[in-house]
């Protein structure tokens, strides 16, 4: 190997290594700590759990309790919270996709001069703090809020809608917050798509909707899956939006974990709930990876062939 290649190799290792090292230290290690706690038993004191391994009288005592995992998968509170979280996350993902896909499609097909402006509008919410935006929704949604006030003023309704502290508020907040996370990767995927494929379908006799269903949609599948995962995974564990906009009965897993750690001070059960959630989230990721692997042999997916620059 030449010196230059060696230098490039080490440079590459460094560039790839830094984020991995970061993830190892700040994600993998804490997760393993949480996993370890999930096998301990609660007790009064600091820390509020028994050690898994201790040295006593010349013997190593290992005590791993799996009762918290049993509790998590049998207790209706946890099962219900998981089911509800997944349900809300799925509904959020679906609504984001229904709103986001057509929007991305139109942005990707619009005049390049307009594209960046439209894309900017999608990213604009990121310029304000997440928490402030969620609080702002309270002002919009509450009974005396702007939306109800406006509708009452228009005489469209005679009684204020209850949009706040129930599933309406929760879903509005979730879709609002997660929409950009779906749109940005999906847009990046759609804008790369070779328009001549759609034109070819059209010339071959496909009406616009047929071209969409047979060419555009199948070719955007990977973009759809990737961007849906980007919404679904954090949406399952969402804590702030259900807390501020959702109803008191909307117990999502994020709230359950919070309560477990900080209200009941039952760290082992909360840790088990956390570890179980990671497993729930790993399933869709693993599924996506499998699809990616299967299609990895598609190098030209959207890549334009050489010599394709518009000639005139």
């Amino acid at each position, binding site marked *: 190997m030449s010196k230059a290649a060696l230098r490039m190799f080490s440079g590459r290792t460094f560039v790839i290594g830094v984020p991995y090292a970061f993830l190892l230290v700040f994600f993998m290690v804490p997760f393993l700590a949480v996993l370890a706690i999930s096998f301990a038993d609660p007790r009064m004191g600091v820390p509020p759990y028994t050690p898994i391994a201790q040295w006593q009288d010349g013997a190593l005592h290992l005590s791993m309790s799996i009762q918290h995992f049993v509790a998590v998968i049998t207790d209706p509170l946890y099962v219900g919270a998981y089911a509800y979280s997944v349900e809300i996350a799925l509904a959020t993902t679906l609504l984001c996709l229904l709103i986001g896909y057509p929007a991305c499609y139109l942005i990707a097909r619009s005049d390049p001069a307009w594209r960046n402006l439209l894309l900017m509008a999608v990213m604009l919410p990121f310029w304000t703090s997440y928490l402030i935006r969620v609080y702002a929704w309270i002002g919009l949604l509450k009974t005396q809020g702007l939306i109800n006030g406006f509708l009452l003023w228009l005489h469209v309704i005679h009684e204020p809608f209850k949009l706040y502290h129930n599933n309406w508020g929760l879903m509005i907040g979730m879709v609002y917050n997660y929409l950009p996370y779906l749109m940005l990767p999906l847009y990046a995927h759609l804008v790369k798509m*070779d328009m*001549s*494929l759609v*034109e*070819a*379908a*059209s*010339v*071959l*006799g*496909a*009406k616009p909707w*047929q071209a969409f269903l*047979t*060419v555009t949609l*199948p*070719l955007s599948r990977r973009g759809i899956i990737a961007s849906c995962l980007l919404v679904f995974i954090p949406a399952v564990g969402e804590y702030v939006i259900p807390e501020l906009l959702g109803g008191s009965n909307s117990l999502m897993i994020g709230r359950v974990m919070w309560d477990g750690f900080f209200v009941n001070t039952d760290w082992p059960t909360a840790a088990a709930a956390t570890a179980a959630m990671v497993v729930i989230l790993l399933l869709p990721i693993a599924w996506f990876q499998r699809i990616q692997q299967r299609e990895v*042999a*598609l*190098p*030209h*997916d*959207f890549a*334009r*062939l*050489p*010599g*394709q620059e*518009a*000639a*005139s």
Partner: protein
Amino acid sequence: MNEATRPQRPPLAQTAADFVQLVDVVKRYGEAVAVNRVSLSIRKNEMFALLGSSGCGKSTLLRLMAGLASPDAGRIFVDGEDVTALPPYRRPVSMMFQSYALFPHMSVENNVAYGLRRDSVAKNEMRQRVAAALDLVQMGKYAQRKPHQLSGGQQQRVALARSLVKRPKLLLLDEPMSALDKKIRQETQFELGNILYDVGVTCILVTHDQEEAMTMADRLALMDDGRILQVGTPGEVYESPSCRFAAEFIGSTNLFTGELEADSSRRFRCPHLEVPLEVPHAMNARRGHAAQISVRPERIAMGFRKPEQECNWTAGKIEQYAYMGSYTLYYVRLASGRLLAVDISRMGVHALERAPDYCDTVYLSWGAESLVVLEK
């Protein structure tokens, strides 16, 4: 549409010569006029080439015929039918894209069947027609492959099968060779030409490569700046270019600027030549009329003795030469300083008493029939 309600001039009589007709077609993009009042008639089963450099409007013209863009003015007829307002999926027109635009998520077979599926062709017939189309381009055994598993030439043949399987009345080819390696390009030109000839489909081919146009096309239209400058067979356009652009774009040429002499309607006086140029036909112009006169390098003869003829000769020193195999290209510097390109065939060099060399003084001569007068 009723004949009487057509706003533009009525379509010309429907004959084999007018199978595809463009009448005063205009396409603007903002201020720029991409296609400027183009009218064309293309014969049935003809292979027609639109030739021009990049940005001349030829691809836009092709997209207008496919229906992928709509003209700002003018009409387009295919086999007597006014298709101007039809969307691409209703036109009896097919197109092979420059990138081939094969659907990457479909097998070769499904790519070819795509158009038939849209027409709800019966399963059995579809299978037969797909197989026949793939056999035509010798791609039958690759039916189950995905496009990315094929070479460029194979992809091109699949794209061709896909555009032919619907039996279009008109096939449009957008730079069909540009994505291929130079090596296989020439071979493919003949192969593609043969397939299209056997199928007997009317073709319009867009290319910037004059060799490709001359190899493949029965007739060609030379385009520049959104206009058609000349239409004719490759021979006609090469031998009698209508303008300076045509003379220079197709092949290379020597151009002289001349003024018509007072006492002759055939003789031009050129500042760079000692003797006048005598053109083959009498000019219907006044004395002093200025024109460009073209003579192709291979039309010039070279010798060591002063030619007998009164006109159409000059003398100079060989400044450069390049052995090109079947001919030798000489650059000859005239006394006036003008440089002329002269192609002498192998036979022509052998006919001389010795091979011309650097700094040799040679006489150059040509017949009147070799001169083409270009207006402007």
